[in-house]
Every structure is written in structure tokens, then in C-alpha cells.
């Protein structure tokens, strides 16, 4: 347990290590992690949400949408980084590419399942009220798909934070993983302290996205959809 005491002391000192004055602070590294992760999630959302929502809206491509999710999970992030390093050399581009490859599948799969799963009777009713295809999408299907759609984004965000730290193992510096990958400078107490920060960061990202999801979910769905507010691979039960 002594190690944990030392680890918390390391966190309390914001990552300062005696004899190494030029090391970055933990706050700086945490912000860098968030920056790299946010870019990855933003690109993935920009690709994945329109694709999944569109496939769900036209009720096509269920095989592709669901199996894409499975293939995404099969790719070890460290392996993608290694292969990316071989072809392009390691840098922000390769790291973001790896993040997008990992984050797009759960987003597409869940956006698809969310929109595809909207009660057909509701869509028919909306059409009967004279709504156009776009209105049905924007005012009926999307609001009802919010819980699943967001569950996909949350899963993706957790993968992305995790992979951003793993990128340090591949030699990309600019995240809390730098500390974990550099036991020589930081000693085990620093590694452990950074691991605690990484875990806390992932849980914080997850919790704040859960709050956003709650705010975006239509009131009528909140009670009925409570069981879905727990983030996880929601496609698990279906695929």
C-alpha cells in the first residue's frame, strides 16, 4: 500500500519528480490527452454518425453496420499503431488514424441500431401527419435514437482515451501514457500515479458524456430508457 501513498503524493505534486525539473506537469499531460482524444472522437463522430443514421433511416446494410462493430473491436490499438508506424511513420496523423479506426465502428453500429429500431408505427404516423423524410429523421427518428446513438459515442470515447495513452508505448509523446511508458524517470510511484489519473480521466469523460446524453434525451424516454444510461457495448446483446 506504500506504493499507493507515494502515487498520490506524486499526483499531489502535479507530477514533479525530484531531480527532473524539466518534466511536464500532470495537468499539462491530462489536457494533451484530452486534446488528442477530442480530435479523434470529433472526426469519428463526423464520419460515423451520418453514416449510421443514414443506413438506419433507409433500413439497409444491417450486416455491414453490425459486423463493422465487431471488426473494429478485433483490432488491437498497439498493432494498428505498429503497422501505421511501418507505413507512415509515427506522429499525430497515425495516432489519430488509429483512434478513428477504433472509434468509428461502435458509433456507426449504435447509430444504425438506434435509428433502425425506431417503432415503424411512429414513422408511419409522422408520415401521415405530412412530415417529409428529413422532418421524420430530424424530429422523430433522431430524438428517439439518442440513447443508443450516445451509448456508441461514449463507448468510442472510452476506447479513444485508452488508446491515446497506449500511443505513448509506441513512442508518441503527448499524453498521460508518457509517464506510464517512462518508469526510468518517474519510478513506479509516478507510473502508478499516472495510471490513477488515466482511470479517473476515462471515468470522468464517461460520466460527463452520460450527463450530456441525459440532457439530450427526450423527457418521455428518460424513464423508459433508464437501463440504457449505463454505458457499455450496447450492441453486445444483439450482434
Amino acid at each position: 500500500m506504500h506504493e499507493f501513498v507515494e502515487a498520490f503524493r506524486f499526483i499531489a505534486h502535479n507530477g514533479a519528480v525530484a531531480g527532473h525539473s524539466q518534466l511536464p506537469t500532470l495537468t499539462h499531460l491530462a489536457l494533451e490527452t484530452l486534446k488528442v482524444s477530442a480530435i479523434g472522437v470529433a472526426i469519428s463522430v463526423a464520419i460515423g454518425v451520418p453514416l449510421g443514421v443514414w443506413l438506419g433511416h433507409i433500413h439497409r446494410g444491417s450486416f455491414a453496420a453490425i459486423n463493422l462493430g465487431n471488426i473494429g473491436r478485433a483490432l488491437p490499438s498497439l498493432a494498428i499503431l505498429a503497422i501505421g508506424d511501418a507505413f507512415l511513420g509515427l506522429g499525430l496523423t497515425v495516432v489519430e488514424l488509429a483512434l478513428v479506426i477504433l472509434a468509428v465502428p461502435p458509433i456507426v453500429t449504435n447509430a444504425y441500431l438506434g435509428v433502425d429500431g425506431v417503432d415503424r408505427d411512429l414513422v408511419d404516423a409522422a408520415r401521415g401527419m405530412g412530415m417529409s423524410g428529413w422532418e421524420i429523421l430530424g424530429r422523430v427518428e433522431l430524438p428517439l435514437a439518442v440513447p443508443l446513438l450516445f451509448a456508441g459515442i461514449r463507448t468510442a470515447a472510452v476506447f479513444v482515451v485508452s488508446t491515446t495513452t497506449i500511443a505513448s508505448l509506441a513512442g508518441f509523446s503527448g499524453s498521460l501514457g508518457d509517464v506510464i511508458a517512462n518508469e526510468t524517470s518517474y519510478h513506479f510511484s509516478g507510473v502508478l500515479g499516472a495510471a490513477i489519473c488515466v482511470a479517473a480521466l476515462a471515468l470522468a469523460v464517461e460520466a460527463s458524456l452520460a450527463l450530456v446524453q441525459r440532457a439530450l434525451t427526450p423527457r418521455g424516454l428518460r424513464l423508459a430508457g433508464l437501463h440504457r444510461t449505463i454505458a457499455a457495448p450496447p450492441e453486445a446483446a444483439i450482434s
Partner: protein
Amino acid sequence: MALVPAGAGTLLAAASEPVIPNYHAQSSSCVVHNHLFCADWISHNWGPVLWPALRQHIVLAVVAVAIGFAISMTLALAAHRYGLFERPTLFVTTFLYTIPSLALFELLAAPVGLNVFSAEIALVSYTLLILFRNILAGLRAVPAEVLDAAEGMGMSRRQSLLRVELPLALPAIVAGLRIAIVTIIALATIVYTIYDAGLGVPIHTALGEGPFKTELIAAGGLAILLALAADGLLVLAQRALTPWARARVD
């Protein structure tokens, strides 16, 4: 350079400076010039490096999923019978699932030590959420009429579980196993940070040695191929075990 094999000699003389140092004086020109993929390097290193890492990787993943399955099955059966188990189990397993792998390995290394146990504990903890949710969803999806029929035939609760509910839940359970094994194969590449085993070891060596492309592609590619192969095998197992569900599953 005088030690380079005769066949490569002429090539070397004409080409630019070699990229990879020819340590043992037996590297091919492909390796020395860091071409994209050198089959001869793979065949040299398969026996001493790649195959042992692959074998360790498979063992790490299979053991983790087997233990995780036993725990999840127990928890899911408990939650199926006594509903109040569900929420706490989901809360704890979700919490574990959210913690990034690199952090969880280090957090376990402090109390458990840098050994295979902390590696397996971390891997098992990632299977729990996936397997628990899928087993429970499978059990819950059994239609009430089927359960009534089983009761009407005079089956006890235990008989109904073993002979009706579990077989009907099998597609969902195998689907969960599929996701779990693929996820664990991916995560096991990080095990090398606390315990010297698995495909993470050659990937780490490759990344550390710099720009040698063949090694990077071989080590990374093996991990991806293993995950895809495991997924494919489980799809076949799923089909073989549940012939009645073939029309619905795919």
C-alpha cells in the same frame, strides 16, 4: 560489409547505405534495405520469436475468457433468479470496463506484482460486462410460453434452466463469447507492460528498434489475424451448436 552473403553483395555495392545494421552478418538485402515485407525474416524468426509469443497470447486470452465466463455465468444466473443482483453487478463491471487497459494493468501490478496473475485479473475483469450482459439478455429473451410449457411438462426449475432456458440462450451467449475473446485478444497486446508474454512483446521490440517495417507489420498483423481467426472460429461454433437458430442469427 564484407560479411554480407554473396548474393546480396552486388546489390549492396550499388545501392545506398543500408538502413538496418547487419548485426549477425546473415541478414538478406531485403532486411538490410528495410523493404516493406521480408518473408525470409519471418521464416527465420517464426520459431524463436513469433510462434512463442503467439502461443502465449492464445493461452492468456483463452484462460481469461474461460475464468470470466465462469464468473459471469454465476453472476448472470444469480441476477436471473434474484433481480436485485443485476444493478450492482452492472455498476461494478461497467466501472471495470471503463478503466483504460494500460492503467488497470499498472493499478493491479502494485498490489499483485508484475506477474501473470495481475495480467489475468485485468483481462478477466474486461470480459465480465460483455459476458454478463449477453448471458442475462439471452436468459431473459426466453418466451414466457416456453417456460409455462416446461412447467406444464413437470420440469423442475433446475431442469427448465438446463434443458430449456440455457439452450435457447445459447446464440446470445456465444455472441457474447465472440465479443469477449476478440476484445481480450486485442487487450492482451498490452500485457507485456507488466508481464513478459504475448504478441505485445514482439510489437514492443519492433517499435523500440525503430523503422524495421517487416517486424512491425508481422507482429502487429499477427495480433489482428489472431483476433479475426478467433472471431471466425466462434461464428462456426455458434452455427454448429445452434442449428435451429441459423435462420435468425445471421
